[in-house]
């Protein structure tokens, strides 16, 4: 646990499997079924099932975090349908940003509105963190899972720390 601002921590996630599925509705439905979901999550929402988590990043796209680190069930469910299922685990690095000022720190690097009414728990989207592409997923009221491309990770981490420092400084000075 690394505290980057008063009551706000930034941690790297351990290596994990991430798959990107591109396909039409039938393929997305089949993947949701294989993950144990009732339905494909709506656009910009995440859902969890027994087989893993599905993040709906686009109308024809799911990012999948399989629970057991295996894609065998997905491959079987999708075999008869046109789709692409690509393992992008090595491309990504995950962070967890958590704490009362987590949304404020993200807002220092991104023009999205992180108020709970605009960006509720369960919402996920790709966007920009300063100048690097990132996927931001609100997993709790004060918890965000951030996915960035591996080569951008030191940059994004440094920017998050810098904003955290600025917020801590303004807390001290008022």
């Amino acid at each position, binding site marked *: 646990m690394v505290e980057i601002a008063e009551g706000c921590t930034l941690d790297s996630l351990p290596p994990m499997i991430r798959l990107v599925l591109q396909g039409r509705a039938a393929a997305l439905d089949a993947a949701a079924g294989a993950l144990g979901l009732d339905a494909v999550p709506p656009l*910009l929402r995440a859902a969890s099932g027994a087989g893993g988590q599905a993040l709906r990043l*686009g*109308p024809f*796209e799911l990012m999948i975090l399989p629970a057991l680190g295996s894609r065998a069930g997905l491959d079987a469910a999708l075999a008869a349908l046109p789709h692409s299922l690509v393992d992008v685990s090595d491309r990504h690095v995950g962070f967890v940003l958590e704490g009362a000022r987590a949304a404020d720190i993200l807002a220092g690097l991104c*023009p999205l509105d992180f108020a709970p009414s605009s960006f509720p728990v369960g919402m996920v*989207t*790709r966007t920009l963190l300063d100048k690097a592409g990132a996927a931001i997923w609100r997993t709790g009221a004060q918890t965000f899972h951030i996915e960035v491309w591996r080569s951008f990770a030191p940059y994004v981490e440094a920017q998050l720390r810098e904003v955290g420092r600025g917020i801590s400084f303004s807390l001290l000075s008022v």
Partner: protein
Amino acid sequence: MLLIDCPYCGPRAEIEFAYGGEAHIVRPAADVSEAEWEAFLYLRDNTKGVLAERWRHSHGCGRFFNALRDTRTDRFLAFYEIGTPRPETGEAA
């Protein structure tokens, strides 16, 4: 900074998008003449007024979509999905 309303994700800042040029330009068939091919590749209307154009939500859902934008004011009049016809706006093109 323009506020662009992705048909899939909703309103987002312009920095999340890539511009895709004039929309509704149809690729000619394989037996095309050189003049027609040149027109397809290079000739655009350079509209002063309402322009139908393509945008891609490159730092978002990744999809292309179309927009109607008044090139004199930068005001957007409509956002619509690729493959759907240009909406009527009641304003002169």
